[in-house]
């Protein structure tokens, strides 16, 4: 939608032209988009080069804070030999054919895959553009292409003394054949990859100029809020709209599949109108159990053992062990709570629909909206004010609701769907609540001889449009991280009990690892303590010789934290290691006891994510992941009261981490030549178990349920 300014110098010196463009209403922004689309040199779907030397990269992944605008542009700029100051980024529109996530087979962002799936694709795109610019220069200057060099955005021929920026070559470059398989650099020749790079979206996000979905205003647009059922599975029985229609600014009320929609000329009128709406709900099919009652059912299911999803050796070793430890863990539902509430803008005009929103799965959102409306739908993918999984909707429910309100309006026009904070926190799509039962056996020498972990929770994919991804098997995201542990446990069995209830669930930043990492790494710590072993050395001793990267992050975090054991000077220290999304992370937490509650003062983090494309972004994601995980571990639970209503509604009852609670964070990035893996999620999982381990070491208290601050049901 909007190209994002990169040059700080340009901005600080009053680069008015470009900033003006960002701040102008949508019409101008669209003109910019059109200008980029009509750039004289567009060698492929990803790169637009203008006569002004600016290189705009069409980013196929949603920028929701994890840095793909910067990361993918770095990959292009590296192979293009561009200067970082000439790089711009904008969201690619919905187009599965051009912009699919190569790991998903459809356009979508998630699973910390943006860099990993794009690594070669974006480099090839940049290399192809570079080859065409070189061919153009060779043709214009009448010199051999092999003698031409490109450096920091300047194309040069040493012998003739000729040189040019990209802009002057665009016309000739556009006439060159597109190389099918251009060579890419040897990693030892990387200039940009591996060094810190200012982010492309920082300036716009520090001035209020960045355009998010909620900032889009169309001529004649109505703002729409929807009254949703107060319980999961309830539906509209009847409604009385007289009071709502009496509110000045309310234009119409329509029933849609997800509830009752209030259309108004401004947001306040829409909200006031919804307050005045009287809806009677049919709760015949609604979930009426409390979280406690659900946990009782989960505990019964775990006692039956679940289906075996991983097995090694003979678990009877556990029954014969010298010492057996057991624990049951309970994890609540969690809301993602991205700070920009859910929203979407849709405009229906002359048999076509255009949408503007932070679509995380354009590959699903577009066909879903098109099927509802029966007209072609284009999606302009905008910046999103956070997601943490919330916008990655297998059900495409926001695109669907936006399409339904446009359809129900019964006329052409523009509509902005807005969810309030309360709508989101009460509205489902939570991290599944989970119950874990763990057992471990030690022999007389303190060696672990058997390990069993049975998990009960809902499947995220089962029953939804993405169920085919399961290929008839269990949903691995329900127990990933309980399975796949690198430690040598002798015998092991991982079981899964699939639970079903009407509360909608979704991926939440690091998915299964949010609870499996906590259960496995705190229970392991307890077992190591029972065996009289140090948490760091004990883990290292359990790793097989080939687990070099696991060993690397554990040893590194021990080194930078100055590990001497789990207590020192009245403070507790805990370590946890979790591999998620291909990235290896170990963290050490330092905790103090403040009036019976944990206060985390420092966190050390070692991360191995392969080639570190932009260390600045990697550190930022580790810092942010640590804070995100800490706030959740300390404070957050979504609970259902008896009768089935959600008990939390806003940040007063679902508290966010505040600045005074944020620890100092030190991040060490392990040097690597391996293909890069993601960093958006992997910083999250080790934090809570490292905290649990530090807290047990300091106080003796074993925290078998989260959050720390209170009961979860």
């Amino acid at each position, binding site marked *: 939608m909007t190209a994002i300014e990169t040059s*700080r110098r340009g*901005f*600080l010196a009053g680069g008015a032209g470009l900033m003006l463009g960002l*701040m102008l*209403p949508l019409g101008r922004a669209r003109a910019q988009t059109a200008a980029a689309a009509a750039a004289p040199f567009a060698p492929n779907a990803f790169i637009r080069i203008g006569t002004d030397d600016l290189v705009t990269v069409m980013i196929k992944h949603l920028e*929701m*804070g*994890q840095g793909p605008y910067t990361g993918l542009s770095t990959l292009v700029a590296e192979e293009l030999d561009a200067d970082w100051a000439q790089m711009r980024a904008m969201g690619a529109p919905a187009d599965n054919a051009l912009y699919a996530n190569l790991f998903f087979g459809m356009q979508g962002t998630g699973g910390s895959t943006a860099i990993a799936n794009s690594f070669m694709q974006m480099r090839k795109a940049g290399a192809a553009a570079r080859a065409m610019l070189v061919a153009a220069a060779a043709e214009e200057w009448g010199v051999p292409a092999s003698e031409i060099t490109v450096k920091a955005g300047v194309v040069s021929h040493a012998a003739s003394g000729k040189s040019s920026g990209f802009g002057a070559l665009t016309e000739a470059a556009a006439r060159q054949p597109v190389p099918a398989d251009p060579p890419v650099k040897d990693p030892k020749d990387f200039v940009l990859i591996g060094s810190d790079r200012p*982010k492309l*979206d*920082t300036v716009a*996000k*520090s*001035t*209020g*100029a*960045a*355009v*998010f979905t*909620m*900032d889009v*205003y169309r001529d004649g647009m109505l703002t729409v809020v929807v009254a949703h059922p107060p319980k999961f599975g309830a539906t509209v029985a009847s409604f009385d709209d007289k009071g709502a229609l009496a509110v*000045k*600014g309310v234009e119409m009320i329509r029933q849609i599949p997800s509830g009752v929609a209030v259309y108004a000329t*401004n*947001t*306040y*009128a829409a909200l006031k109108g919804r307050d005045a709406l009287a809806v009677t709900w049919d709760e015949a099919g609604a979930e009426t159990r409390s979280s406690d009652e659900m946990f009782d059912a989960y505990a019964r299911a775990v006692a039956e053992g679940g289906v075996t999803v991983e097995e090694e050796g003979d678990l009877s070793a556990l029954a014969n062990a010298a010492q057996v430890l057991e624990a049951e863990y309970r994890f609540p539902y969690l809301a993602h*709570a*991205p*700070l*920009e*509430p859910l929203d979407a803008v849709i405009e229906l005009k002359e048999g076509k629909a255009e949408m503007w929103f932070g679509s995380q799965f354009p590959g699903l959102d577009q066909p879903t909206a098109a099927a509802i409306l029966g007209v072609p739908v284009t999606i302009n993918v905008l910046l*999103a*004010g*956070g*997601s*943490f999984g919330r916008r990655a909707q297998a059900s495409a429910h926001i695109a669907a609701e936006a399409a339904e309100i446009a359809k129900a309006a019964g006329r052409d026009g523009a509509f902005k769907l807005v969810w309030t*904070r*309360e709508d989101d926190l009460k509205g489902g799509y939570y991290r599944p609540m989970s119950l874990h039962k763990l057992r471990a056996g030690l022999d007389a020498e303190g060696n672990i001889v058997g390990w069993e972990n049975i998990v009960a929770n809902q499947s995220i994919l089962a029953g939804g449009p993405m169920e085919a991804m399961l290929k008839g098997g269990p949903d691995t995201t329900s127990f990933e991280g309980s399975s796949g542990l690198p430690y040598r446990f002798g015998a092991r069995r991982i079981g899964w009990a699939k639970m079903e209830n009407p509360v909608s669930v979704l991926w939440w930043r690091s998915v299964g690892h949010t609870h499996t990492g906590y259960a496995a790494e705190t229970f392991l710590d307890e077992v190591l303590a029972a065996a009289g072993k140090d948490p760091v050395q004990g883990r290292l001793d359990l790793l097989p010789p080939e687990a070099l990267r696991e060993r690397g992050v554990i040893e590194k975090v021990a080194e930078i934290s100055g590990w001497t054991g789990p207590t020192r000077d009245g403070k507790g220290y805990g370590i946890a290691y979790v591999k998620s999304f291909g990235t290896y992370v170990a963290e050490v937490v330092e905790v103090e006891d403040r009036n019976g509650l944990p206060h985390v003062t420092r966190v050390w983090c070692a991360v191995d994510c392969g080639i570190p494309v932009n260390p*600045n972004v990697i550190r*930022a994601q580790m*810092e*942010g*992941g640590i*804070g*995100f995980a*800490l*706030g959740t571990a300390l404070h957050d639970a979504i609970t259902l009261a008896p009768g089935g209503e959600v008990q939390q509604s*806003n*940040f*007063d009852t679902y508290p*966010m*981490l*505040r*600045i*005074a609670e*944020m620890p*100092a*964070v030190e991040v060490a990035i392990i040097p690597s030549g391996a293909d890069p893996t993601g960093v958006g999620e992997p910083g999250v999982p080790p934090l809570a178990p490292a905290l649990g381990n530090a807290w047990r070491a300091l106080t003796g208290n074993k925290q078998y349920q989260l959050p720390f601050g209170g009961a979860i049901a």
Partner: protein
Amino acid sequence: MTKFTVNGREVDLDIDPDTPLLWALRDELRLTGTKFGCGVAQCGACTVMLDGMPRRSCVTPISMVEGSEVTTIEGMEGPEIAAVQAAWEAIDVPQCGWCQSGQIMSATALLQQVSSPTDGDINNAMAGNVCRCATYVRIRQAIHDAAKTLEG
């Protein structure tokens, strides 16, 4: 009609006087740098200056700002906001960016009152601003950096 000043310009709004200033700024004046995060003064994304002091615009009806001067992120001027934004940019504070207008307004207000804030000052002044991406390490650093810049 409700009359007040926004970013030095007089406005005269013929809308429900109960309308929160947040929605008047966004829906009527299209000043979209001020963000909606919670609607109940719990997150600070909607922070603006009201007669020079930080204020949560989501719980401030426009009837309350009659005759007042409102400044949004778009209209901020002076050495403190310049130093804060430069510090934000130098260490890439924002991630998703949604809260950052509010963070920058609160940080600027702090530096207008306290030239060399301690960590405790920062904790107090920024306590009402939530960053869901938890960019707090860099927010704290950037405030200290901006204070140093202002000292010269």
